[in-house]
Structure formats: C-alpha cells, structure tokens
C-alpha cells in the first residue's frame, strides 16, 4: 500500500476546493476577557477531543519510558505549582482550560509543552 523510499512525486491537479465537510470550525478568542475566561467555550466544546489527545500523549511517553506513570502522577499532584512557573497570560489561560474541561492542570501544561518534549 505504500511505495518504498525514496518517493517519487505525483503532482495532483484540481483538488481544490475539497468537500465542505473537511473545513474546520472557527472560534473567536476575545483578548479583552481575563485570560482565565478566554478559552471557556472552545475548551468546553472540545473537552473530549483534548482529553483524548492528552491520553494518547501520556501513553506514548510512558511506552517510550520518557515519562513513566509515576511522573504523570506527580505531574497531576504538582500541576498547580508547575503552572506557576509559566509566564502570563499562559498561566491563567491553562487554569481556565483546566476548569472548563475538568482535566488536571499538570496535564494541560504537559500538552502545551509537548513540542519541547517531542523534538528530542
């Protein structure tokens, strides 16, 4: 089902526009609101998706021995302290997302620094 590398290109034409069901929804983030309230609507609407991604990240980090279950437990425990190390407004925005989704602060923090963990 896949070509052996190195791959050769197949330049396609006429693919635009794709079917409308591939368009993504739009939300307004009101920067005039306090940081803790900016993400309320979006975080609530997408809480299951966010939970699912974080669950998958944690599974991956655990599988590779990068962040064992014990560290995740510690992360949940120390989340409120950990988030205080981040600059504003990100600190309060993470608190707001945590409140809106019911997901632990430490796990939302982990999600937001995943790029740095992944680039190794």
């Amino acid at each position: 089902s896949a070509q052996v590398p190195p791959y050769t290109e197949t330049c396609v034409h006429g693919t635009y526009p794709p079917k409308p069901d591939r368009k993504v929804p739009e939300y307004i983030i009101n920067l005039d609101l306090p940081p803790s309230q900016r993400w309320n609507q979006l975080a609530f609407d997408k809480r299951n998706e966010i939970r699912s991604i974080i669950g998958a990240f944690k599974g991956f980090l655990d599988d590779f021995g990068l962040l064992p279950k014990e560290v995740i437990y510690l992360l949940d425990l120390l989340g409120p302290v950990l988030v205080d190390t981040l600059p504003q407004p990100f600190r309060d925005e993470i608190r707001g997302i945590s409140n809106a989704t019911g997901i632990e602060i430490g796990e939302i923090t982990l999600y937001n620094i995943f790029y740095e963990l992944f680039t190794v």
Partner: protein
Amino acid sequence: CTSVIAESPTGKLYHARNLDFGLFMGWDIKNRTWYITEKLRPAIVNLNWQRGGKTVFKSVNYAGYLGILTGVSPGKFTLSMNERFKLDGGYIGIIDLILTGKGMWMGFLTRNTMETAQSFSEAKKMLTSKQMIAPAYFILGGNQSREACVITRNRELNGTDIWQMADAGGWYILETNYDHWVAPLFIDDRRTPANKCMRNMKQKGAGIAGLFDVLSSKPVLNKLTTYTALMQVNSGHLETWLQYCEDPCVPW
C-alpha cells in the same frame, strides 16, 4: 511538515502549510494510520483573535494548545512553524531552563509574536532574539514582494540562519524538516517532490488552489498530515482543510 510561501505574478504573497504530526507514536495496522494523528484531527480549529471587536490575528490551533503553529496577522505578516529535530533539543533546553532560567517555550514565543509584532521585520526580530527551549524552523512572510524567509533556530541564539526568498529561487521558498543547506534524509524527502510540483505549477499558478494542489500531492501529503492551511496576508484570509491520505500513501 511542509511550509511554502509563493508570490503570484501580481506580487501577492500566499503562504500555505501542511501540518504533519505523530511519527512513531503508534501505528494502527488495521486502518494504516498513526494513532496520535487521528486523535489530533478532530481537535483542529480556526481561531480569530480579537481585541476591541477587531481581529488582531488568525491562527489554526489544536484545541487547548495556546501557542501558534500557523497564523496570519492581516496586512502585516504570516507565520508557520516546522519541527526541527536535533540532539541538542527539548530535554536539554528544559534542564537549561531549570538551571539557568533561560529559554522560552516555542509556542509562547510565536503567540507573543502574533499578538504584538506590527510588521514582518518586527516579527523576524522577535523570532531571532530570544533563547528557546527547543530548536525550530520559522517560515515568515511579509506583505511586500519577495518579503519571505525561513529562520532556522537553534535553542541558543548562536547559529541562527535566515534564508531569504530571493536566495531560494525567486518566486517561492519552501521548507520541510531539514536545514536548507543539507540534503534531506532520503527516506523522508518531501522537499524534492514539493519543489518539482511547485515548478510544474509555475508562478502563474501561485494562489490558493495551486498551493492546495501542491500540498495534496504525495508524499508531501502523507499519513501524518492533519491539515492544510492557506493564507493570504493582504486580505488576512485563512482557510484550513482537514487532510486524509488515501492508500496507497506513504506513512511519512
């Protein structure tokens, strides 16, 4: 990831990108998909960041992620970020942050840039003047003819490289996940196919539809691709399409 900025014959700049994520993070043998990639797709949203009821900038985000990976500041500049893999990467940066307090999280740096920079040159300055926790490629477009570049960042400020569109071949500049001065890994060469499709399209095809075609061509489009975003700086236009790579399709 693949990011490209192209200039139309009328001098308009178009910025497009594929966001690929989830390599080696669980392969679903039955459906031939990457586990995390499939989880990310339903969380993709377009955000319109407003102050005083007016748009400050627009971005494409995974819900719950506060940083910016793709964004347009209408009339000013466009930005996308591609991952840069390096041994001196995130973990060392995090230890450095704990020990010395130096370093900025990538997503927060791009967010600050989108919120505060008032021009291409100001954005370029912000993206090149802060120590980071992990290396990255920033693909930055302005609002003037040929105003586009790829910034290759180390964690630290030494070794920053700025590659201008004029030096990249004239009417477009393209970046995947390799330093532009070295050849990509032969099993992960999206650069050569993307360049070939750009040249096939020619400058007269540079626009939303043409760039979408290039980014929908395999292996530029692959099993890791979650979305294609298309931006035009002058109008502040941003549109995002979920991407799926039907078999036969390369895993990355």
